[in-house]
């Protein structure tokens, strides 16, 4: 059976057992699997997957309908991945399932809704139905699989005018021993008019197993809403991660994100931001630090569909060993989106001769009076700089680690959530020990 057939058979099996969720959702699941059946997995002939081969994923024999969710880890086991901030709300998902036991729900202001999306299907049925992906929306293979299979994820709804001061951590833990599993987390974040929240989305592994995380996060922002969205990938050295964040921005809303990829054998990060109304502001930042045979692919689409919206992107990569990086940044400026101000930059630091990067800006401009810029730069650590650092007593490894850290700093300094920044600085320092980046996380 091909990988595609395996997924289709698994869906049939689920149907026999009885699909979960309300009728409208079961209908969407059916549409989505039909879509997947039609298209299958993308191949390198698909322009969007030209530089990322899915062969490692399609060659893996996944256990798609395991009999149980796997063992629940102890609090001690997940402690290293919990941001060191005892007052934060933290939702923990184990192999894609919400764990009330490991989660930490703190009092939140007003009528903020937070919890499992699976439960919200019952408790907040209307809100979820209205905001979860519209029917008939074109889905690529992974989005379709997520739509067909998702069981759980995080739900956050911040009402109009409410500011949630403390950041919220979403922690997705993969424990999967034994056969390779697939998790399809689905998150829904809804920000009302003039509301503000900070969400830290983190994907981590206990152990070094093979699995696939196929996550979709939907962000719906009301007028003048503000979301600071941090994403941290610490997947295992054998894991695959495909994650899509879809952002819908209303007038004067402000979305700022920073995605840091440290772990995972094959990682694909997608961001689709629709700047649907005037004055929307979208700032995407990212850092990928990969070595060995790791592969990190970032695809962004910023859709300037309305006038006078702003977007900024800064993605930096550190590549060692035979690692491969892909950056594809697409900016669409729709007819009538006058006064658009968009800029994108991708910079890569190559620590080995065998590492490789494919960086491609894609600007599609159909409006006048537009400021649209892009830049890309690849380079190595300059010999003169390494000598300067050595001349102050640091050896080669320490010099390279220090300078590489410096390269990453431009992205990290944009993270204003102090405990997360401290955590990431520590992770990065550990990752760069010896001045090299290896496949496995320390």
């Amino acid at each position, binding site marked *: 059976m091909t990988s595609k057939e395996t997924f289709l058979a698994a869906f049939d099996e689920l149907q026999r057992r009885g699909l979960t969720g309300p009728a409208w959702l079961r209908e969407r699941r059916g549409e989505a699997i039909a879509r997947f059946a039609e298209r299958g997995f993308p191949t390198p002939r698909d322009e969007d997957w030209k530089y990322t081969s899915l062969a490692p994923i399609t060659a893996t024999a996944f256990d798609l309908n395991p009999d149980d969710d796997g063992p629940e880890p102890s609090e001690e086991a997940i402690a290293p991945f919990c941001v060191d901030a005892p007052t934060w709300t933290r939702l923990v998902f184990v192999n894609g399932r919400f764990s009330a036991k490991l989660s930490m729900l703190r009092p939140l202001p007003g009528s903020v809704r937070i919890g499992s999306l699976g439960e919200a299907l019952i408790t907040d049925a209307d809100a979820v139905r209205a905001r979860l992906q519209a029917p008939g929306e074109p889905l690529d293979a992974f989005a379709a699989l997520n739509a067909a299979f998702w069981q759980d994820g995080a739900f956050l709804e911040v009402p109009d005018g409410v500011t949630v001061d403390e950041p919220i951590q979403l922690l997705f833990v993969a424990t999967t021993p034994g056969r390779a599993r697939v998790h399809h987390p689905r998150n829904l974040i809804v920000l009302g008019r003039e509301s503000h929240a900070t969400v830290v989305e983190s994907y981590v592994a206990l152990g070094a197993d093979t699995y696939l995380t196929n996550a979709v996060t939907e962000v719906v922002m009301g007028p003048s809403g503000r979301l600071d969205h941090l994403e941290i990938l610490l997947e295992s050295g054998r894991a695959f991660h495909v994650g899509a964040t879809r952002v819908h921005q209303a007038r004067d809303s402000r979305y700022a994100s920073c995605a840091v990829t440290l772990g995972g054998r094959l990682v694909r990060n997608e961001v689709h931001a629709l700047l649907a109304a005037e004055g929307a502001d979208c700032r995407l930042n990212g850092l990928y630090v990969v070595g060995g045979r790791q592969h990190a692919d970032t695809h962004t689409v910023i859709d300037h569909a309305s006038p006078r919206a702003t977007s900024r992107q800064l993605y930096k990569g550190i590549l060692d060993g035979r690692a491969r990086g892909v950056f594809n940044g697409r900016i669409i400026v729709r007819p009538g989106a006058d006064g658009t101000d968009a800029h994108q930059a991708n910079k890569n630091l190559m620590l080995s001769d065998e590492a490789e990067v494919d960086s491609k800006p894609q600007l599609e401009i159909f409006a006048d009076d537009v400021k649209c810029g892009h830049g890309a730069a690849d380079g190595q650590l300059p*010999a*003169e*700089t390494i*000598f*300067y*650092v*050595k*001349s*102050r*007593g*640091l*050896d*080669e490894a*320490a*010099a390279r680690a*220090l*300078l590489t*850290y*410096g*390269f*990453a*700093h*431009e992205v990290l*300094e944009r993270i204003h959530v102090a405990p997360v920044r401290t955590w990431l600085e520590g992770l990065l320092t550990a990752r760069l020990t010896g001045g090299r980046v290896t496949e496995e996380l320390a």
Partner: protein
Amino acid sequence: MLLEIRNLHAAVEGKEILRGIDLAVDAGEVHAVMGPNGSGKSTLAQVIAGHPGYTVTAGEVLYEGRNLLEMPPEVRAREGVFLAFQYPVGLPGVANAQFLKAAVNATRTHRGLEELDAMEFLEWLKQKMALVEMDASFISRPVNEGFSGGEKKRNEILQMALLEPKLAILDETDSGLDIDALRIVAGGINQLRRPDNAILLVTHYQRILSYVTPDRVHVLAGGRIVKSGDRALALELEARGYDWIQEEAEALSR
């Protein structure tokens, strides 16, 4: 003898720049190395510090009686050799405090001392910053990024003060400085002047020598030391330029 250079020849990309340097510097001394542009002054400084771009083709350099050329650059630094760069290099994203703490602790570990923790280091750094009149904001700024020329040179002197070298080589640290910066830099150098260490001042002009009085002055031309003397030689160079020295040297080599 702290530093002994014998018949040193060095080349860059196959081109010989140093053609037989002999120089001995004892602890407690300040030597000025002067000379016209392209005479090999900076090459001499870089070779002593261990720049990988230069190949030593003949001769030897002894530091405290040991073969300096065998040591990698970082070991030379930890052993007390310091080069203040003519063109200090910027380190984007690396804060001064982070860099200097790593440097100080690498040297301390090498010398069998305990590493300084963040608080101890900050105290030590602030003391030395006062010496070169460095503003507090300097601590978190990236190394030599967005620095003025004068700030970069003061930063080199600050690093020297923190690392307490036995042999400090200052490569045109005085060039491009206004009079205030020159005074600060000279003050920093004089602070370091002690009976147990030595300073090699590489300079084009004698201006700095009015602040830091040298024990010996050497003139480099065509990759060789063509004349040595005391402070009076520097003044003579100031008055007469370098041409007569080069002519003398050429006459000698004919």
